[in-house]
């Protein structure tokens, strides 16, 4: 999606990160979920009315039913939970949080999904689904943008070839990026305040320390290492594996009308 970022090259052979599904989680999935504040906030007492599913943009197109997911969590069945964490299902949500507004019991199925996704990544179960494996692309691109530039989106890394919907105007913008941003009054890669300014190194260093202390670096290294090992297994370079994950779409498996 975005250009190659040197920052990650050094992490690819990190042998200290476990790839395999970690046994410490087996049989304790519900217990681990309860540690997540999004579960504490997002799941009080679901009465299975299904309003979340009715309003859900993902449920209209994907084989996705947030009510059923909340049911599985409420049942506390470890085998069912394990299957859920290994499935594509939890990755269909767009986190628009439309479900939150409509739930008559003030639950937040969208937050439950976020907690499930985190646990799926921690356990390594996410590597067993096509949509779960996409976390490699997201983690690699978004975290590198944050750590290298201080932004989630950085226009020099937003390539037209990977975003053709950016249109003929987007292509023109990218071909004239500095001139267009100068015309618009941006401070692209400049010093001082302003749009798209270069974030001072001191601030980038602080973001890196925040990542290290709060668990983002550990998660990032795990996901990148998991992908590296999977690429090896498939006889692919990391770059080719990245492209495969970014573009693979077995839509008949995912879509309601598939």
């Amino acid at each position, binding site marked *: *999606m975005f250009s190659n970022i040197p920052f990650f090259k050094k992490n690819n052979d990190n042998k200290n990160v476990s790839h395999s599904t970690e046994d410490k989680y087996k049989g304790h999935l519900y217990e681990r979920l309860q540690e997540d*504040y999004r579960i504490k906030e997002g799941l009080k007492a679901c009465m299975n009315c299904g309003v979340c599913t009715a309003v859900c*943009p993902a449920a209209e*197109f994907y084989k996705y039913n947030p009510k059923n997911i909340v049911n599985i969590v409420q049942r506390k069945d470890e085998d069912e939970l394990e299957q859920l964490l290994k499935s594509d299902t939890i990755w*269909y949500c*767009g986190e*628009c*949080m*439309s479900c*939150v507004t409509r739930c008559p019991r003030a639950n937040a199925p969208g937050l439950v999904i*976020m907690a499930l*996704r*985190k646990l799926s*990544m921690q356990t390594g179960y996410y590597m067993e689904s096509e949509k779960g494996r*996409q*976390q490699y*692309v*997201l*983690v690699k691109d*978004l*975290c590198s943008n*944050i750590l290298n530039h*201080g*932004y*989630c*989106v*950085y226009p020099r890394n937003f390539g037209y070839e*990977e975003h053709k*919907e*950016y*249109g*003929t*105007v*987007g292509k*023109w913008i990218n071909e*004239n990026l500095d*001139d267009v941003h*100068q015309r*618009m*009054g*941006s401070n692209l890669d400049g*010093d*001082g*305040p*302003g*749009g798209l300014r270069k*974030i*001072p190194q001191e*601030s980038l260093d*602080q973001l890196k*320390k*925040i*990542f290290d*202390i*709060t*668990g*983002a670096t550990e*998660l990032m290294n795990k996901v990148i290492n998991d992908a590296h090992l999977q690429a090896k297994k498939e006889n692919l370079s990391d770059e080719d594996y990245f492209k495969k994950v*970014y573009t693979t*779409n077995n839509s008949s498996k995912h879509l309601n009308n598939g």
Partner: protein
Amino acid sequence: MIVEGKQKIWADYQKDIPDDHYFYVRSCIRQSFFPGSEVTFLDITRNKLGKDFYESAYHTTCGGIAYHSDSIPQETAMTIIARQFALMHESGYENYVCSCITSFGCYTETLETWHEFPELEAKIRQYLWDSCKKEFAKPKYLAHASDIIYKFRHEIARQAKYKLINAKTGEPLKVVEHIGCHYSKMFPSKGFGGAEYPHVLVGMVEAWGGEVIDYPERRQCCGFGFRQYLIQANRGYSISNTHKKFESMEPYEPDLIITNCPGCPYFLDRWQYVIAEQTGKTYGKNGYGIPALTYEEVAGLVMGYNPWDLGLQMHQVAIEPLLDKMGIEYDPKAKYKGINGKDLGTPINPINIKLQ
């Protein structure tokens, strides 16, 4: 209708917004794709309204897109936010205003979660100290930048050069408003009008002479869905949701879409281009699309800013039909020029949707 009852209900959806002195933080998406909007916002607030909006060079992303793409833990996102609050505190400000709806949702979620779980706030305080040697104070007031424009919408109307009115017929323009999911779907009390009667954009449209369209999929998501757009394989989700909205609004023949969130105008603009090129269908008249603008761009148009200073040339859907309807004067030849008229070439004309 019992008016007092209605007023009582409506009172729950109002916010008191401080008049002045804000610590301003930018949006990753808005500054990348609609940079003229942030420039215009600061020009309106500072120079047209005479307000104090301060920006620190040291502020960064809030991490919201990574958080909602499940790429960083909640604690990481909260500590980045705590660092932003520390910068506000160090700069001597108490009112915090952000330029992004995803950020607004993340800030609100963070403050609400800390309120409910003080031990988590204490943990984040420690994380911030350990990582940055900083201490934060929570904002006395948290606003989204559109809240400010809403608050001063009548003052902007007083300074306006144009109205959201068809200059030839005198009829109000028909406007679709799209407030963006994370403005008030998660925490309805934090947005003007809540999730049931969202008024932040309605108030602007009505104050500037337009007429808001009510259509069935008015509250439907634009289709961003974070990972559902950022991963190429998932983009069918994104365009399908946008398509659903356009099919629903089409019979009402909108002249304009006004948006709150920085991502929504990108999707509502670019997916129209893709739908047109894939199917031949356009949602405006005579082969044009429906312009999807940011609220800053709409405010700038009514105040008489040059459309190319606002950045309307960065949209794929042609803006000219709207400018003509409003009677706005513009130089068509200047549309794609750089500073001092530098020739930057022109974008290629798509096959099915008109560019100018």
